[in-house]
């Protein structure tokens, strides 16, 4: 048997220390990435894909109509004006729909924001495809400026039959500080 020390007690202790170090590393290199993969694959927490979806040409299913509702929320401490231009739209699965979100920076300083999406019910997250979204990138805004931010999405034809309504919620975070740190670090 492989030994780390001639003293059997010290040998056991050293091996167990290695186990402890491995478990510490396990948290960072296994648990965190695994959690993210699980959330992406299973759509847990209503997480939608963070990258643009390439629309596959498919027939629009006009036999079904799905209500898609939009919610916009400011995260704690965020001062922007943030709301969808329309509260809800009715769409057929397979058709590409464009909507706009309004964002305004009422402060006098330039700021950077990041929108984080979440879909309810979470089972629908895997069937809600964004072909274009302002949430894919950070949104910088000069002081007192405002912008109309585009979102294009397709509801998958495979959406389970019992789902009639999908709610898409955006939370807007102030990332000015973290972004300026990163810019300063470059």
């Amino acid at each position, binding site marked *: 048997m492989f030994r780390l020390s001639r003293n059997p007690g010290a040998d056991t202790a050293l091996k*167990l220390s290695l186990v*402890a170090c491995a478990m*510490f590393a396990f*948290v*960072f290199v296994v*648990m*965190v990435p695994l959690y993210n993969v699980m959330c992406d694959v299973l759509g847990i927490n209503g997480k939608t894909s963070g990258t643009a979806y390439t629309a596959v040409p498919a027939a629009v299913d006009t036999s079904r109509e799905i209500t898609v509702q939009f919610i916009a929320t400011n995260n704690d401490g965020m001062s922007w004006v943030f709301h969808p231009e329309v509260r809800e739209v009715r769409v057929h699965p397979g058709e590409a729909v464009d909507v706009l979100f309004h964002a305004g920076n009422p402060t006098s300083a330039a700021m950077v924001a990041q929108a984080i999406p979440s879909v309810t019910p979470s089972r629908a997250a895997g069937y809600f495809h964004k072909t274009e979204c302002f949430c894919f990138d950070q949104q910088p805004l000069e002081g007192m400026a405002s912008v109309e931010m585009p979102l294009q999405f397709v509801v998958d034809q495979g959406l389970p039959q019992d789902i009639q309504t999908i709610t898409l919620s955006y939370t807007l*975070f102030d990332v000015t500080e973290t972004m300026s*740190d990163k810019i300063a670090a470059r």
Partner: protein
Amino acid sequence: MGAHHHGPAKGITRWLFTTNHKDIGTMYLWFSFAMFILGGAFAMVIRAELFQPGMQLVEPGFFNQMTTLHGLVMVFGAIMPSFVGLANWLIPMMIGAPDMALPRMNNWSFWILPPGFLMLASTLFMEGGAPAFGWTFYAPLSTTYAPPSVTFFIFAIHVLGMSSIMGSINIIATVMNMRAPGMSYMKLPLFVWTWLITAFLLVAVMPVLAGAVTMMLMDIHFGTSFFSAAGGGDPVLFQHIFWFFGHPEVYIIILPAFGVVSQIIPAFSRKPLFGYASMVYATASIAFLSFIVWAHHMYTVGMPVAGELYFMYATMLIAVPTGVKVFNWISTMWRGALSFETPMLFAIGFLVLFTIGGFTGLMLSIAPADFQYHDTYFVVAHFHYVMVAGAVFSMTAAVYFWLPKWTGRMYNETMGKVHFWVSFVGFNITFFPQHFVGLAGMPRRVPDYALQFADFNMMSSIGAFVYGASQILFLYNVVATIVAGAKVSDEKVWDGAEGLEWTVPTPAPYHTFEVPPKVDAAPAYI
């Protein structure tokens, strides 16, 4: 160094530099008792504020600091070190070893504990106050919204985690390498078995806790976003990591208690433990299952139904090995020549109350029902039945049981019995009504509550003051025993007690088993 039977050094350096397992065990036990009193004082503040509805004594922010520190101090300062102290005293004496395998590391693992807790307690006096996010320190409460003292809290967790890891490595190294000839694994006393398994759990999960607090530290100070959605992280990830540590942690607390009770019940039943091998396998099964059930603490977090079902069934499975253990303890008493000295009273108290706590645990394991129980006083009642009536009662039983062996003096039996009955009644008055207010919807960690909960909360507070006062009686009894208890000199202090620790002289000399003992082919306790 010809004098093999030299006694301890004199003065303070004896305690600072000691590598003797008995000295270190004693220090662990006294330290954990001090923490028990401190954590108890925090609990008294909580119960005093909750005596009546409305805000009377403390600010809500301070109330939250009290619930947080009460939990942290009791789990990491009182219960865990007390069992490590017991392990230090008893494991070498039970397996016929002269000392722990790594005596210097043993000294170090104790002496980093007091500074760690000093650091944690000092947060109370810092600007912004002590951590107020509950002992489970969920992000983002413990990151974005935490007081500045959270950094001291994180470092304190690192320190006491290191202490626990070193302590458990020492225990494993001792049990694996220092057993007397003939002491095979399946002859180990059950206390040694439960501690061996507990130590493996500690080595596996304390680093996970260290990882969780390190991520918090990085999120707070170094611009990472493990738990912040704005940067692509997820607060729910914190809960998964925390409970991946936290669920094995509750078995870390209770398994040594199982071990203690498995020593005491046979002694006062004057019968060997019923089903020794099944006890060992049940303990190992509980330890294994503890790793795969963590998300039952998070049913309301928004898991897929398949996840809820899996964690529900896996959790219910734990009732099987636990049921085996309870069955075995009762079967040990069946037709035994029972006597009811104080350690036995506490052990039976453990058995009855822990089983109640186990049943409420089974209720909580049912995912759909848990949505109602989640974060209510029902949960508080449940885990105090297993933590206090489980771990603390068994620890108290252990002190009464082995104190005569350690000190050569007998405690006052009448005072011990009074302590038991006052604790037992006080405990139940405190925590039984909490089941009712919890089911009726009273949330945990609130400094004020709706009027309809007033009567049960007043009962609860009165019970808590009674239970708290009974611990002063315990302290008095232990000190009085050490100073002026009636001398005992029988090696077997209790006529029914079996095991190597009862073959050494009473009081246990400073050094024992310098020559390994002869272990019987079939020890009397199996």
